[in-house]
């Protein structure tokens, strides 16, 4: 079984983010990390392999990322967790690509690999659109098991069962393979890379793919090929700190007074 995990490098989710004058995310101002939510997908891939006989049984995990040169660091993190190899789609023309283009590029790369199972996180913590997995499902014409809080793969029957966990409740889902599975963060506890894992990752291969490799013209991607554009942006007016009182025994009363004044009760 070949598992492919889509990952993205993002600014650290605990850091303040901003846009550059070119109206794209400033990727230099904050530490770049492997998207938090993708770690759960990498971890789940490792657990699926472990539950099905491990690497000895011929199962492999390939990471796929589109991004600038430094996105390699995020791939290296996933490799140090235990993935086997990685694909890095890298091309200067891709800067500023929208979700439609990103999903197209990822879909083209996935087609070359022909995986049995594709895992993703629910969203990237920078753009937060949460549309790429559904877009991949359309482009690849593969079933999509979204919001999976539990995944069971039957390698012999080539079926996947998942529990889809949303506000509406829990839905048991079933699908043939290949399929795309989006995992939520409650599915597992991602492992920290071990020292051995980090050393081993240095020797694992990251293959680079260019637009030419994927048969996509540079004019069709990036900001100029996008279906939407940012007109302008501004920092939101800072929320002025309001009234702050210290509880002297009537803190709750003061709170109620404030709500009444604001006509909120």
């Amino acid at each position, binding site marked *: 079984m070949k598992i492919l995990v889509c990952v993205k490098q993002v600014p650290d989710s605990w850091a303040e983010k901003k846009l550059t004058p070119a109206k794209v995310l400033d990727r230099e101002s904050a530490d770049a990390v492997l998207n938090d939510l993708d770690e759960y997908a990498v971890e789940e891939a490792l657990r699926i392999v472990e539950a099905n006989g491990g690497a000895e049984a011929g199962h492999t995990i390939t990471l796929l990322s589109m991004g600038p040169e430094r996105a390699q660091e995020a791939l290296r993190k996933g490799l140090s967790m235990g993935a086997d190899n990685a694909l890095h789609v890298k091309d200067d023309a891709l800067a500023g690509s929208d979700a439609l283009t990103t999903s197209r590029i990822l879909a083209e790369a996935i087609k070359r690999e022909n995986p049995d199972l594709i895992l993703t996180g629910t969203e990237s913590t920078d753009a937060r659109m949460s549309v790429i997995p559904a877009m991949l499902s359309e482009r690849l014409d593969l079933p999509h098991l979204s919001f999976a809080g539990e995944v069971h793969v039957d390698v012999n029957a080539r079926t996947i069962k998942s529990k889809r966990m949303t506000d509406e409740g829990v839905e048991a889902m079933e699908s043939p393979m290949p399929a795309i599975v989006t995992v939520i963060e409650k599915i597992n506890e991602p492992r920290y890379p071990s020292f051995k894992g980090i050393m081993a990752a240095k020797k694992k291969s990251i293959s680079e793919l260019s637009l030419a490799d994927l048969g996509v013209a540079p004019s069709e991607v990036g900001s100029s090929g996008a279906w939407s554009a940012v007109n302008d942006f501004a920092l939101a007016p800072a*929320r002025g700190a309001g009234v702050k009182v210290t509880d002297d025994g009537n803190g709750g009363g003061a709170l109620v007074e404030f709500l009444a004044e604001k006509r909120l009760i």
Partner: protein
Amino acid sequence: MSGSDIFVFVDHSNGTVAKTASELLTLARSLGEPHAIIAGSAGDFELAKSTLSDFGAKSITLLESSEINNHPSSAIARALADLASTKNPRAILLPSTARGKEIAGRLAVRLEAGIITDAIALSSELVATQSVFGGSTVVHSQVTKGCAIVTIRPNSIEAAPAPASADINSIPVSASITAKITAREPAVRGARPELSEANIIVSGGRGTDGNFAPIEELADVLGAAVGASRAATDAGWYPHSHQVGQTGKTVSPQLYIACGISGAIQHRAGMQTSKTIVVVNKDPEAPIFDIADFGVVGDLFAVAPQATAGIKARKG
């Protein structure tokens, strides 16, 4: 129909229309002629019709299949895309919910149309306003090619009724689906409103030390939803579905009361656009005070119950 048609995708639960539908129809009326589209069974349709015409839908189309809701999004997206490619609407509006965004993403691919998610406003020129990076930045953006697919964050638009008589259509849909829902356990719904739709949210964090009773009591007296910080859900004190923040839900209620939450960017990112923010925290240095309209430095176990009692007393 004409080039000024605005499609509104209506979310519902067994025919009970989501609050987002009235918000989206109100917005659609300011952009062109609103047309509501709903997927489900004929029975669902009967229940939904009157609400949709109350909010000004010029037509209501049912994508009819008893099976269609047995798949989260692909069958609906296909049927909706087929309808859109014959009617060529100017825009398609969907709620910015998990399901709304899944359908929107699929529509964008099928229609080769641009997509903007999480808009909080949309001008008559279809310029979308988004509040990004935890509310620190306001972005104006626009779809530049194809029909505009825009998902609107719940609670961003104030719904106003405008009754209209709507044409009623029904299109039978065959849901050919490879992934199936085989069983369902609906979420146990308490009396409390759904987090993303609530006008008031009371949230608890690390400071609750696992005891959410004072949070829930304050929420109930206010008719509010209960939220939680990542620290609280990670500790297993409150269900993950209630998590507000960067990796949880983004909410913008009229009133957000944060109790025992320090206010790391992780949390602020999910609630900073709330209209009024009230904070209760023992630590006067907690960063959440920086964005509070009203803050009480004190123990939530004293302040919250006192507030609950005070509100009860006012209500008589």
